[in-house]
């Protein structure tokens, strides 16, 4: 038998140095860092349409990525220099560690604000309210949660949707025959198509996207009975108050500024059409570009969501925005 002690020691030292390294990062705020380096690392999901995804051309685009574009414009004004944006793709399952470790400076995708995540990270104010609902094959007589008794339900691994699905199953609110866990939303949709599952649970927005991409969208139906409501926020490292304030001010700014005031910037994003409606704010215009009624991933804004947006507007940001230093 060989002596494995040195290996074990090496292993423990490895763990220790990882712990030390990760606690050492994060002393310097992102804005200060961007001022020095001129680079910001923005995280982008690869398949979270319409918020952040990779399109046919291979570009990382989406609602949150458009917002990131505008945010960086504003940040350039703030730090007084040109900023290079590094879009870093990441998997949904690893989003908390990559932000906590500082692999990315800000995650702009579609992440639910949850208390455990908030323990290790900070969230911006919510920009979207999503509900966990489910999609079924049309014409099979499933119209509500009660119809799921004895059926097979599914959701994606490492999501809050799966967690809430398992919670309602454990509480006996629905009594499916089996809960199937899939690896990606695309596989979940395939499972629904091939009848491996009868109902696939995830966010309304993501289901709208999946349905839109299907060959025959009319073969599927989204049942708007939710098992869970989730606010989305953009994620930043814990205790970077300067950045968080900046992002929240930015959100207020998009919600209160008329579209027509920023035509130059918005034309770069290709959203001039939306601005023809004179009552639109910047937020409305970007929302309409990705989730408006004419889009494939249309998500009607519910009254609850509209109230939420009105409620988060910070009054009088004029004095601290955007030139405070």
């Amino acid at each position: 038998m060989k002596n494995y002690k040195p290996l074990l020691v090496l292993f423990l030292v490895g763990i220790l140095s990882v712990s030390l390294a990760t606690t050492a990062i994060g002393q310097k705020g992102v804005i200060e860092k961007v001022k020095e380096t001129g680079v910001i690392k923005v995280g982008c999901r690869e398949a979270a349409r319409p918020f952040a995804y990779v399109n046919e051309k291979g570009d990382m685009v989406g609602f949150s990525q458009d917002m990131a574009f505008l945010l960086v414009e504003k940040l350039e004004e703030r730090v007084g220099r040109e900023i290079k944006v590094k879009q870093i793709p990441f998997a949904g399952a690893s989003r908390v560690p990559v932000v906590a470790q500082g692999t990315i400076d800000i995650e702009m995708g579609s992440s639910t604000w949850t208390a455990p995540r908030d323990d290790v990270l900070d969230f911006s104010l919510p920009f979207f309210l999503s509900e966990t609902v489910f999609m079924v094959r049309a014409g099979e007589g499933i119209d509500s949660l009660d119809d799921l008794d004895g059926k097979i339900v599914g959701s994606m691994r490492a999501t809050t949707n799966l967690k809430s699905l398992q919670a309602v199953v454990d509480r006996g609110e629905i009594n499916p025959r089996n809960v199937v866990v899939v690896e990606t939303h695309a596989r979940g949709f395939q499972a629904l198509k091939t009848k491996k599952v009868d109902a696939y649970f995830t966010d309304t927005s993501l289901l709208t996207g999946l349905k839109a991409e299907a060959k025959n969208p009319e073969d599927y139906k989204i049942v708007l009975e939710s098992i869970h409501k989730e606010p989305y926020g953009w994620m930043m490292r814990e205790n970077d108050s300067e950045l968080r304030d900046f992002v929240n001010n930015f959100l207020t700014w998009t919600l209160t500024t008329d579209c027509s005031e920023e035509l130059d910037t918005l034309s770069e994003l290709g959203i001039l059409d939306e601005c023809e409606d004179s009552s639109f704010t910047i937020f409305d215009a970007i929302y309409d570009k990705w989730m408006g009624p004419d889009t494939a991933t249309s998500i009607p804004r519910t009254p609850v969501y509209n109230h939420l947006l009105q409620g988060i507007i910070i009054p009088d940001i004029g004095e601290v925005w955007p030139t405070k230093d």
Partner: protein
Amino acid sequence: MGYQFDWGVIVREPYWHWLLNGFIKTLILGSISWGIALFLGLIIGTIRTLPLKLARAIGKTYVEFFRNIPLLVQLFFWYYVIPPMVGQWFNRMQNLPWIMAIFGLGVYTASRVAEHFRSGLNSVPKGQRHAGLSTGLTNFQLYRHVIIPYGFRLMIPPITTEFLTIFKNSALAMTIGVLELSGQSYKIGTWTFHSFESITAAVGGYLIIGFTVIVFMGWVEKKLKIPGLLGGE
């Protein structure tokens, strides 16, 4: 501040039980697949050394097919593509991920084991083969009494590697919904957002399995040593 470590999630309920459950599942998954791999691999590896063209061709086809396709793709194939073709009763079976993970892992590893068997059997000196045949043994007897006992011992080191690898590859089963050790540690990560800690626990679990396999195979190797041959005293 950065990330706050909380090593307690590894031992707190219910997470401790999730990890234990995953650990046991990994053990079962690896062991049953290993049984399949060893059995199939022995057959395929042996027929690849037979003096029969057709048998060799079948063996080669099997090996090239399974060895050249990534295991992940194979698992998706077994889990998503095949079951709907077999029938809905099979497609909708409750333990399908389990069955397909064991099967997929087994037939894939068999192709690798078969290659080790083949090279082991081929490295038995030609003289042994000729000596066996000239004493009047049939092909079956030759394999049964001379080539396999001899070649098998040569293969123990590479086979140990495959035995280790099957436990490591079993982590891929999580992609088709089997919550083995990695799957459970990721699940704890989602539930508690302490995935560093839970993944480290998984690392520990795999190390325990790995060391056990090495010690066990070392014991097997020692037990089977023929004095005077292959480094035996």
